[in-house]
């Protein structure tokens, strides 16, 4: 496939809107007559509501309604489960009973004329509870590991136990062994834009302007909650101010906004506070892992055991791919992976950028690094010696795998050859300098998607899909795809997303938007050209009238008789002659035969350099270099931007991010942008993202493998490995803190 627009560094088409404040986010869609809703969150971590002094608050100025479990009414909550929902368990049914399942659970919603009045009433509302001590720490003796129920069903998506050979025996008898445990803190997504919903009813029809990475599911879920036909619900979300996975699911506040609007018969706006974004909008689960490696003295893996467990709530079993990439990452005849859940008295976790894979890669890649020291082998050489020829867990070839090409490219750019292997051997003045590397991987997913293209008489095209753009540049990249397959310059294409009126797409997550929606747009573009060909040969006013389809050819946007440019007519001319816009739909999904023949994943190699103050233990990341094999790069500007964000997220995971829960009541004590640490500009080092040339004809017609998630995977272990190289101190808990570096 030779390309004209795909692969170009096209600036963001929505950039001017964003930098001039004209991009409208969910909370910007104020409606006439709108009232304001504020959620009252539970202040105990477990128990039940015993009373609520609503009467006193109802008399406060501007208060229109106080909804709680005694007056909200029974909501239908019809069964609804999307792929993004946990396979087992049932979503939180909000305001349906007096039970408090976790700290911060919504117990009431206040509706008032102004936001200020609603906030004051929410603070004034006295709620009494019968509270019990929750269990929120997976290390608590009362916490129990369970096998995910979803893995117990035949043909289950979730795999709890997987393996080949006898891994434990192979590790036990191997000449060189590593056996370590890893603990990664709970993290919250903390995008800049808070969750927000404006809900407006028109008779029995509901419109939601609501922050969502999965509009068609929000539509279906709210329809199920309220027991109404799907087509009566519209969801609109043209812009997202960052999400990282937190808006994949439809959380209770959307239901509460719709409920409040219905109750008062007016549009209602509900925006979560920063603190509330630590309660009911998911989080990266805390994980506990063990990795045991056994190797021959020349560095061949003989046995590999990876056990992992993640926290979940009591009412849903959230699962993620914690140990999955271990199955195929390296060549190893004896391998066992185990995945468990630890139900706790918390809200349900959800996917956070690089879910599972980034946590699992931390354990695996730190253990591999540790093994390289035990063997006295360069960490990259260790990976090279265990590079598999095929996916040994599925016994099928990779559709493409550029891991060692990534290592070579990144190592060269990073200057890995300057590294002296011995820990504490590199210094810059009084600072200890360390270099570390780690492998990244993420599956090349593809989900069924749809799109629509409309050619207009003025020679422009409208392209529509119910997709989202949380920041990767979907508006821009899809415009490039449409330009490519329509043969039109991007300036003449208007790509629209963010409405359930448009053709359905999968969730905007899992790095599959370009693979899925991009392929659907391609299909729609090809379909509309075919439609145009049929119209043209039947149109007496056009020179191609009467030609057979195989006698036609396209020259850019001009349709002509083969070899006869003078017979060519543009989209504008053909559409004008037809007298109506020409529209076609397209859809795409992965051919199941191809899917079963190949193992499809992206790979990457991440390098980190850190400088550590040996007196006070501060860790400064000086450089991060990543090289990725992600198939075709649609837009290198956007791709590098994706990687910059992912690496910064990985830095946060490595050194800063941690939601700290008070074990007495499950309260997050740092639910605040000042106290939940993420890198600030001054922390962020020189970042470099490189892409290896990789043609993958199998993954999808565009040859793209996705980039959003893998950009975070691998960074945290690269930094942790660099910390070890600098100090000789192996830290196996994240985030790595000064006290960990200083600890004896």
């Amino acid at each position, binding site marked *: 496939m030779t390309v004209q627009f795909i692969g170009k560094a096209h600036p963001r088409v929505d950039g001017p809107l964003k930098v001039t404040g004209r991009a409208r986010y969910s909370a910007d869609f104020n409606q006439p007559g709108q009232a304001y809703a504020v959620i009252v969150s539970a*202040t105990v971590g477990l128990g039940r509501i015993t009373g609520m002094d609503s009467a006193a608050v109802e008399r406060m100025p501007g208060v229109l309604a106080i909804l709680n479990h005694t007056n909200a009414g029974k909501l239908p909550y019809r069964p609804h489960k999307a792929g993004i929902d946990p396979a087992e368990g049932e979503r939180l049914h909000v305001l349906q009973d007096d039970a408090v399942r976790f700290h911060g659970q919504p117990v009431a919603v206040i509706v008032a004329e102004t936001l*200020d009045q609603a*906030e*004051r009433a929410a*603070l004034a509302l006295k709620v009494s509870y019968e509270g019990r001590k929750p269990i929120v720490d997976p290390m608590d003796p009362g916490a129990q590991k369970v096998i995910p129920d979803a893995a117990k069903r035949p043909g289950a998506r979730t795999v709890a136990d997987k393996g080949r050979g006898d891994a434990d025996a192979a590790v036990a008898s191997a000449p060189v062994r590593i056996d370590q445990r890893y603990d990664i803190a709970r993290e919250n997504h903390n995008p800049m834009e808070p969750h927000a919903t404006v809900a407006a009813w028109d008779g029995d029809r509901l419109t939601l302007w609501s922050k969502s990475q999965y509009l068609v599911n929000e539509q279906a879920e709210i329809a199920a909650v309220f027991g109404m036909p799907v087509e009566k619900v519209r969801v609109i979300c043209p812009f997202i101010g960052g999400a990282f996975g937190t808006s994949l699911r439809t959380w209770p506040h959307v239901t509460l906004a719709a409920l409040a609007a219905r109750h008062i018969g007016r549009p209602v706006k509900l925006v979560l506070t920063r603190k509330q974004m630590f309660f009911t909008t998911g989080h990266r689960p805390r994980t506990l892992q063990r990795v045991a490696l056994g190797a021959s003295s020349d560095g061949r893996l003989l046995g590999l055991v990876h056990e992992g467990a993640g926290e979940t709530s009591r009412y849903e079993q959230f699962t993620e791919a914690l140990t999955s990439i271990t199955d195929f990452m390296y060549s190893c005849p004896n391998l066992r992976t185990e995945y468990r859940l630890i139900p706790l008295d918390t809200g349900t976790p959800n996917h956070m950028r690089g879910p599972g894979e980034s946590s699992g890669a931390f354990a695996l890649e730190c253990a591999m690094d540790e093994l390289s020291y035990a063997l006295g082998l360069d960490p990259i050489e260790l990976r090279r010696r265990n590079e598999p020829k095929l996916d040994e867990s599925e016994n099928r070839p990779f559709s493409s795998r550029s891991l060692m090409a990534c290592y070579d490219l990144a190592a060269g750019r990073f200057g890995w050859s300057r590294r002296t292997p011995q820990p504490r051997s590199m210094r810059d003045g009084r600072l200890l300098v360390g270099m570390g590397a780690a492998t990244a991987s993420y599956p090349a997913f593809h989900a069924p998607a749809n799109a629509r293209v409309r050619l207009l008489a003025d020679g422009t095209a409208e392209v529509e899909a119910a997709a989202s753009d949380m920041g990767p540049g979907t508006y821009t990249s899809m415009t490039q795809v449409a330009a490519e397959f329509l043969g039109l310059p991007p300036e003449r294409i208007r790509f629209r997303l963010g409405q359930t009126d448009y053709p359905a797409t999968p969730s905007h997550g899992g790095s599959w938007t370009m693979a899925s929606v991009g392929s659907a747009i391609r299909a729609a573009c090809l379909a509309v050209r075919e439609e145009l060909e049929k119209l043209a040969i039947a149109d007496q006013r056009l020179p191609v009238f009467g030609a057979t389809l195989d006698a036609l050819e396209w020259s850019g946007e001009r349709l002509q008789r083969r070899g006869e440019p003078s017979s060519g007519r543009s989209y504008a001319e053909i559409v004008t002659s037809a007298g109506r816009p020409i529209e076609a739909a397209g859809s795409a999904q992965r051919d199941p035969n191809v899917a079963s023949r190949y193992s499809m994943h992206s790979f990457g190699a991440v390098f980190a350099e850190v400088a550590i*103050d040996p*007196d*006070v*233990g*501060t860790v*400064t990341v000086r450089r991060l270099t990543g090289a990725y094999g992600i198939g075709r790069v649609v837009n290198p500007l956007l791709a590098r931007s994706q990687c910059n964000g992912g690496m910064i997220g990985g830095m946060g995971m490595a*050194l*800063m991010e941690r939601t*700290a829960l*008070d074990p*007495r009541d499950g*309260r997050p*004590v*740092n639910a*605040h942008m*000042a*106290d939940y*640490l993420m*890198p*600030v*500009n*001054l*922390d962020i080092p020189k970042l470099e993202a490189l892409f290896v040339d990789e043609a993958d004809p199998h993954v999808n017609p565009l040859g793209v493998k996705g980039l959003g998630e893998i950009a975070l995977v691998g960074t945290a272990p690269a930094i942790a490995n660099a910390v070890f190289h600098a100090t000789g101190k192996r830290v196996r808990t994240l985030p790595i*803190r*000064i*006290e960990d570096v*200083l*600890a004896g």
Partner: protein
Amino acid sequence: MLPFALEKARSTEDAIAAAAAGARYIAGGTTLVDLMREEVERPERLIDINALPLKDIHADGSDLVIGALARMAEVAAHPEVKRLQPVIAEALIEGASPQLRNMASMGGNLLQRCRCPYFRMLDAACNKRAPGSGCSAIDGLNAGNAILGTSASCVATHPSDVAVALVALGATMRVRGPKGERNLAVEELFRLPGDTPHLEHTLLPGELILDIRVPAGPYSRRARYLKVRDRASYEFALVSAAAALHVENGRIRSARLAVGGVGTRPWRLKACEEALAGKPVDRASFEAAARLATQGARPLSHNHYKVELLPRTIVRALEMAGEVA
């Protein structure tokens, strides 16, 4: 946020009269407004003092005088501050974020409220916010809390960076109230929590900080501020130290040392200062002195690391001060 009345003071006398009648002073508002939005602070009347002529920064002989309304960013960038007391500029730049430094006044910085997480949670017990309700931090998540000067009622850390430098340098303040003007040492501004942690400072009702005077000392040029924290900006100190050395013929004649992030107020370490006097300017002297810093420290369940980090930070800050040409 609860409703409140806001008045603009046209003169210092106006302002003091309003405050004596119960109004709260507001300058940059970076602490107060933040806490009002969460209803941790609930003032009914605010008196805006931003128009008062208290912004001047100048040298008075070899002393440095900083108006209470000078902004952190202005002070940090001021040539006289850099010339006379560079450690003040250094401490200010390490504090807060650029946006906050542009707004926050020097007087407000000294009087900022603590950053104990439970202080900000209306539904958690906190003796500082609600006297008599108890302390959630003592048995809670207290990694950021103090190890020095704590009581059974409160373990909150004083958050200011520049206050640590001012205390080390022996700065004084001019304050004026309904009963007239007086001077007091910055160090004496701060109370220990004892069993009244809601009383944080020694200002009398209505008293207004006019300016801060930093006396010249032979150690002023050899002074450094080191802040150890989990990220490079917009984060409070785990431990910080302001260290100043007066060196003659390779020996320490006198030293000034105060630390932050560990005390319930900016913590002057006179015992360490005395231990340094007469010693050679070397790491052994610094380490010996720093060992005295944790005398009487009472670590909590999650902040034992501060007992280790405090002397390390002091040693490094003294080394930095010793290296200043």
